[in-house]
């Protein structure tokens, strides 16, 4: 099994380190030619505006979109969630639109609003949630399962084989969400 990690900008190395710990093979996706022979995809944190533009300019946009629509499992964190979202409340530019949710960018304000907390994420109990200039989800489609909420705002969802998180599991040293995602990629 091999996981693709979108590596056009952002904190992709942090995801790679977790996959190394789990003994899972991965490939960095920087161009169209890298996007082949993968069983799952990670969309990392970073700046969604930058990543969104780069996947278009590098010809990756359509490939990624159609693969996810055809069932490629995906784990999207922070900027990744924004790339997946069908609608963005405070931005007219939308990206892959495979996940029927509406997100609000920079929902907690600027860097001084960044924070750490703990919550259950689906079946995973007491997971550390790292929010950095993070978005949250303001609306979800009918078949979307809510995995986590903080102060009544939705911060983690699952829809088919897409997991979208407003926080950064790759920055915690806790591998449980990645293990869960890898499980999606096997079955």
């Amino acid at each position, binding site marked *: 099994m091999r996981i693709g990690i979108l590596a056009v900008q952002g904190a*992709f190395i942090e995801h790679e380190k977790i996959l190394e710990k789990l003994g899972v093979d991965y490939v960095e996706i920087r161009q169209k030619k890298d996007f082949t022979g993968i069983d799952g995809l990670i969309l990392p944190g*970073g700046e969604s505006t930058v990543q969104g533009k*780069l996947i278009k300019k590098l010809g990756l946009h359509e490939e990624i979109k159609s693969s996810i629509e055809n069932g490629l499992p995906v784990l999207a964190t922070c900027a990744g969630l924004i790339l997946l979202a069908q609608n963005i409340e405070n931005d007219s530019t939308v990206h892959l639109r495979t996940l029927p949710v509406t997100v609000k960018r920079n929902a907690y304000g600027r*860097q001084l609003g*960044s*924070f*750490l907390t703990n919550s259950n994420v689906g079946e995973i109990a007491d997971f550390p949630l790292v929010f950095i200039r993070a978005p949250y989800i303001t609306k979800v489609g009918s078949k979307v399962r809510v995995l986590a909420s903080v102060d009544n705002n939705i911060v983690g969802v699952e829809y088919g084989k897409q997991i979208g998180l407003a926080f950064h599991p790759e*920055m915690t040293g806790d591998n449980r969400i990645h293990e869960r995602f890898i499980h999606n990629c096997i079955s």
Partner: protein
Amino acid sequence: MSTTQYDLNKGLAQMLKGGVIMDVTTPEQARIAEEAGACAVMALERIPADIRAAGGVSRMSDPKMIKGIQEAVSIPVMAKCRIGHFVEAQILEAIEIDYIDESEVLSPADDVYHIDKTKFKVPFVCGARDLGEALRRIQEGASMIRTKGEPGTGDVVQAVRHIRKMNSEIRNVVSLSTDELFEKAKQLQVPYELLLYVHEHGKLPVVNFAAGGVATPADAALMMQLGAEGVFVGSGIFKSGNPAKRASAIVQAVTNYTDAKLIAELSQNLGEAMVGINPSEIKIIMEERGK
């Protein structure tokens, strides 16, 4: 600053990795930078090349001008304060800047002490020419480091010198035996614990960007191949013939910094690069500010 806040601040720098941070002086330039794919912008009244030309004392920008840029874009906004000027830093924190650059580009306010950055909640990035400077800034609370280079010159030679020196010193620290680290810490004038981190991990404990003199996609890719985790571009963009096109090309060159074929395409028809000056031709050597 709490440990949690420091981790969140280091975390924001991690999110900027693989990206380009661009100097902008107006909301209009900020929008061009964001549109071109900047992962953050540095708001300042004058870009380094113009600071050189104007001479005199250069200070923190007008908060109103910074606010205008904060309103114009959704990406993180950074701003510079003078070395040691903790009140300028307090002002920038009060207007909720995302990152403060305690910068040698401005005239130093204190020729002995840097700001005690542990007293702030907002994150700081600082310039460094070598491992010793980098670790001293980190001990003072910086959550991100950049090479100093020589700002406003369009000449990449100093940035190359600084990143090569830092990496060579890091390799040296990795190769030492643990009992030699105490003496090395003394030589470098840095805390033992930070040096131990470098010894064990083969890198700085925070993200390290390149800055100072980057003017072309090739310059940016050069810094990435030399081990920078991202690039600041100051005067290089808005002092060039076609800022939007050049900015976008530099962003793409940083993403695919080993693909020479792609960088060749990106480097075509960019219009005039900033003219540039050699460090030997200039009077003010900014990199010597702050040790």
